[in-house]
């Protein structure tokens, strides 16, 4: 039943996410809000993956697969974004080499 309590706690994070976005100072030209919201989302997702999906107690192979998918996402995001960033006229120049 620890799971139950944990979930209620996690569900609260959702409301917290909504409230945190209202009075947060607009630092780094508004990026901070997105960062906080995303951090909360990552924490929630991690809790769901580890506990609900039993990854914490799974075989090493399963854990490798989960880490591999995250790793793949990181590669895709970082490489594509770095490609766009190094194009001239970022961020308004779309498709310019």
């Amino acid at each position, binding site marked *: 039943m620890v799971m139950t309590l944990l979930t209620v706690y996690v569900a609260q994070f959702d409301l917290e996410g909504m409230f945190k*976005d209202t009075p947060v100072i607009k630092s780094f030209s508004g990026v901070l809000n997105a960062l906080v919201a995303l951090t*909360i989302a990552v924490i929630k997702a991690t809790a*769901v993956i580890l506990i609900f999906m039993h990854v914490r107690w799974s075989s090493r192979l399963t854990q490798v697969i989960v880490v591999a998918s995250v790793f793949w996402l990181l590669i895709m*995001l970082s490489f594509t974004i770095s490609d766009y960033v190094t194009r001239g006229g970022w961020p308004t120049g779309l498709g310019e080499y």
Partner: protein
Amino acid sequence: MVGMWLFLLTEVMFFGGLFLAYTIYRTIYPQGFLYGSHLLNVPLGGTNTVVLIVSSLTMAMAVYYSQKGDRKKLIGFLTVTLLLGLAFLVIKYFEYSSKINDHLFPAVGFYAPVTDGPHGVPLELQQPVRVFLWIYFLMTGLHAVHMIVGAGILITLILMAWKGKFTKNYNSPVEISGLYWHFVDIVWIFLFPLLYLTGFHVGSGGH
């Protein structure tokens, strides 16, 4: 079991590509995305998020009871999960229909978001807002399709459990369906702040 995880990995790639598109376009059109996000209904989206998180809980309970061999509780929790999933889809239906009525859906008559009124969009922002709405409908639409598939899976599970096919030793279908359901929930957990909460702090009542 491993097969389901590999399938989920392909799903990560599927949704990941869309999240990438969101990231790029959001960086290029920050104002448009801010504006577009205000067009969405945050309370409904928030309700849907809570609905999904609770449904993940009930799904986990269903898996737990399938491991215990408790048929009654298993069917009970599977049914609750199914009902919550359907509630999510119903709320989505209301969100979509209001968008379609406001001519904000990418179809015939879409390319005319008005310049004034409660959903008015200033002229120079219209193309970025269209991009935002495209991405919104694409991502939530794909997610909704996954929810429908998940609902079908749950119905199948309920029927199988009703016929008494699950025992303490054989409950794999319930477990791997649980994995699928949790995955769909995780996707929404990321979708919600990115799509709905983008402009939340700027004061959604200002427009």
